[in-house]
């Protein structure tokens, strides 16, 4: 039996070693891609092997499985190109840091989280262009997040809880601190957006878990109201976007806000919240990978409205994208639906106007996701466009996401535990019905 600290070091070390080895084959993109994918697979194997030795919370184990899986998925969905070398290696770096955050508690975990935020800020700065001046907000947001994490590490309660919550709102995005998340998903190169779409919420919710119970009640109420507004605002913004990455980013922001509403109302998180975050993050990642498939064939700046009828010429892609869109809309049997139902049926939730707003945000996903997918897959077939169905790596990548979402949907209790959060006294009293 391996000791918990050793197991944790093993988990963090494997991706770092892989990243160092990958540097050696930097001049050969194909070999580099193979090397980074194998490292991510080995990391996944290490998580499976060492899962029994880890002493962290249940959601840490679930998320520890999700991170290597997402790394594999995002790397496989990316075409081989010299420009993607850095992003592939950075993925391994982030994977190591992420696993460290999930398995290390206390100060070490906080420092690793701050490092992730700082790294992303640096990357955003590096890829900043004058065409997108607004991405400076992203850099500032992650800077703020890193500062808040460090403040949380050294301050006392309740200041540390508030700082943790602030950092959580940067990582697990919540309006008005969503700029960093949007920038990361739209401005970073290669496979980083699809990987970070899982890493950021996962480590964010990890921090929120610890902080939400300790913040003052008034602040939690404000956060709950903010979350409802954030869910609706993001849904509206998603509806208005013509750029696919931005639409997906706003869509996931809307769903993440639903989690914030639940966490702030219930003052507790549980297995259902973890299943929900995991599923939403994974489906966002999957959709980003599927959009990458389109970009690989039709160019980086392709307008989604100029493409149609892919269902006829790319049937495998059409089936997988349809399934992903089903999951993103929140239909069964996928994890988003299971997690959402888990939140709604939790005893800590009361039937209120806020819940109706949340349902509205959930409903609006049916419009902005379906609108996007319908434009791509259906309509007039365009024989003038090049059509090549998924290659093996892309197919495997999207299939893995679909299967993982299916598992999260069918067996959420097995993966994240079957316990449900219990209400505090104040929440029980706030139920608006009487006999």
């Amino acid at each position, binding site marked *: 039996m391996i000791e918990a600290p050793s197991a944790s070091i093993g988990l963090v070390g494997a991706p770092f070693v892989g990243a160092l080895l990958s540097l050696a084959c930097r001049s050969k993109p194909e070999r580099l891609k193979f090397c980074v994918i194998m490292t991510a697979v080995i990391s996944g194997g290490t998580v499976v092997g060492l899962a029994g030795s880890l002493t962290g919370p249940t959601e840490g184990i679930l998320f520890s499985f999700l991170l290597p899986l997402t790394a594999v998925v995002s790397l496989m969905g990316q075409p081989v190109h010299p420009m993607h070398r850095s992003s592939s290696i950075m993925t391994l770096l982030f994977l190591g840091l992420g696993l460290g955050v999930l398995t290390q508690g206390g100060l070490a975990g906080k420092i690793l989280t701050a490092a992730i935020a700082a790294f992303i800020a640096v990357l955003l700065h590096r890829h900043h262009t004058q065409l997108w001046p607004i991405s400076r907000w992203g850099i500032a947001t992650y800077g703020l997040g890193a500062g808040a994490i460090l403040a949380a590490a050294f301050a006392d309660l309740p200041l540390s809880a508030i700082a943790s919550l602030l950092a959580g709102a940067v990582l697990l995005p919540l309006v008005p601190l969503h700029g960093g998340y949007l920038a990361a998903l*739209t401005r970073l190169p290669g496979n980083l957006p699809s990987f970070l779409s899982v890493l950021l919420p996962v480590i964010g919710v990890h921090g929120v878990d610890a902080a939400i119970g300790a913040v003052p009640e008034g602040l939690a109420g404000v956060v709950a109201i903010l979350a409802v507004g954030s869910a609706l605002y993001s849904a509206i913004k998603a509806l208005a976007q013509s750029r696919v990455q931005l639409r997906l980013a706003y869509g996931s922001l809307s769903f993440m806000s639903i989690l914030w509403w639940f966490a702030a109302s219930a003052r507790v998180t549980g*297995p259902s919240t973890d299943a929900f975050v995991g599923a939403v993050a994974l489906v966002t990642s999957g959709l980003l990978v599927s959009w990458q498939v389109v970009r690989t064939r039709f160019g980086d700046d392709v307008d989604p409205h100029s493409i149609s009828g892919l269902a006829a010429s790319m049937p495998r892609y059409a089936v997988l994208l349809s399934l992903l869109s089903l999951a993103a809309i929140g239909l069964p049997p996928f994890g988003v639906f299971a997690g959402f139902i888990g939140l709604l049926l939790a005893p800590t*939730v009361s039937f209120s106007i806020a*819940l109706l707003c949340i349902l509205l945000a959930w409903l609006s996903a049916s419009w902005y996701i379906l609108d996007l997918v319908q434009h791509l897959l259906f309509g007039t077939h365009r024989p003038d466009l090049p059509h090549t169905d998924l290659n093996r790596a892309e197919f495997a990548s999207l299939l893995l996401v679909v299967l993982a979402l299916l598992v999260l949907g069918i067996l*959420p209790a097995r993966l994240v535990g079957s316990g449900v959060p219990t209400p505090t006294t104040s929440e029980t009293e706030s139920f608006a*019905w009487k006999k």
Partner: protein
Amino acid sequence: MLLVLAIPLLLLSAASLVVIGPSRSRYARAQFAAYFVGAAFVSSAVLLIIVTTRGPMTLRLYEPDSLGSLAFPIGFHVDRLSAVMMTLITGVSTIIYCYSTAYMYQDRYFRRYLAMICFTDFVLLCMVSSANLMMLFLFWQLLSYLLYLLAHNHGHAPTLEGAFKTFTLLRVADAAFLAGIVLAYHLYETLEFQDLFARANDRQITFSLWPGWDISGATAIALLLFVGAMGKSAQFPLHLWLPGSLFAPTPVHALLHAGIINAGGFLINRLGPLFGLSSTTLHVAFAVGTLTAILGATMMLVQNDIKKTLGFSTIGQMGYMIMECGLGAFALAVFHLIAHGLFKATVFLNCGNVIHKARLEPHLPPADHQEEEERFSWLTWATGFLTTLFIPLMILLVTHGVLRIPLLESQGSVILLFFIWITSSQAILTLMRLRAVASWKVSAAMLSILSFIVFIYLFAVESFTAFLYPDSAEVAFYFKAAALPSWLFELIVLLTTLLTGLVWSYLYLRAHGRIMRMPSWIDGLQIRLYMLFMHRLYTDEFYRKLGQSMMHTVHRVDKRTLGWSR
């Protein structure tokens, strides 16, 4: 017990058999899969017999106490209602599947189409045999997506708008359904049907969403679930998705109009004990159903496309079915949906041939027979007019005295009788417009046949009600819950009688060349109404404008906020 599980699995196997395998053997596999579909029908019939003789069967693959933490509480509860629905669905599906194997033979997407038909049947079967509300909702939602896929031709660009509209409207209804489920779970802490009904009956909970606005918990839940039913059963104003889905193959429409669209009626029946606790919801259902029936039937009359005509006919019939539920005649609604399903499936399966023939032999519509207008018979008119008044009275007396149906004690039954009368008068009017025969023999034969049909119908309905709800107290409970205030009830009966008599006389006299002194505004109104209904009350335009203004607002919000989209 395994039979309960085997029936949906047979359809899933059929779908897999069609899809998986080499292309060269696709026709052989498709034909072989028909045996699976047929076997599902035979098994459903056997299950119906078993359930009738031995009572309901329940198979749960989960612990009922853990329902809240499970997203997929798969379980089956088959009672007489479920078994009847399963037999109907598999029966109609067998016919449609066999028909489709020949009809779609040369279609490029032959395999995908047949597999989706089988998969839709699988979803429908799981839905009607659900053991709890959550499982029912799971398959209910899948059905929304399958409708989006099946009922539209996605290669045809102009129909994509209709497909999107279908999914949008169905999702709105689904969201209301989900809200109902969440409320039910929070108020009664269960989604198991029997427990839910028992707790709703025991606990008189008042729910307040807004201070000072109290509503009974059962009513709030039933209203939300009813909105869900309105979506699938194409009730006004959520009916627009149905006439918009006209470009799919006709067998799909047969399945849609015979099976899928009945989901609303099934839902109300399945949750009958809950709806029975809420008179308000039943009255709303009555109002919505009546409005839909009238609008659907009227719009049907002015359509010039066979599929649209049939589509609006279905909307009208679904309105009728929901209206029956609103009257508390739950069993009658199921009887109606079976009869309508079988009829409409037959019509739709034949519809493709009619269209094909019309395309091959184009000709102008038949001209009106002018000579009929010249012949007017007071004898025929008086016979028709008097008998339309006489028939209901005779039915009332005979059914009350001979068949022992408590018509006089139930408002719902009287209103149904009333509708039979209106339908009869409409039938007589139509016959007389076609042939102005002033003959006692013709009139007598017509009336005898009509009376015979009405009695048989009433007898069949009564027998079916006794079969579906063996406990007569339950039937009486629903009727009582649906009872309208007596003044309103009498007013409705009086006004409808006057209106029917007047319209009957006016139309008959006018059809036979007699001039009736009518104010000029009535003629103008007639034309306006014709235009209004021909354009389907401009509801398509209304929804389009609503969508445009919503998107306009969305873009304004987007531009006003510091945007990443800039």
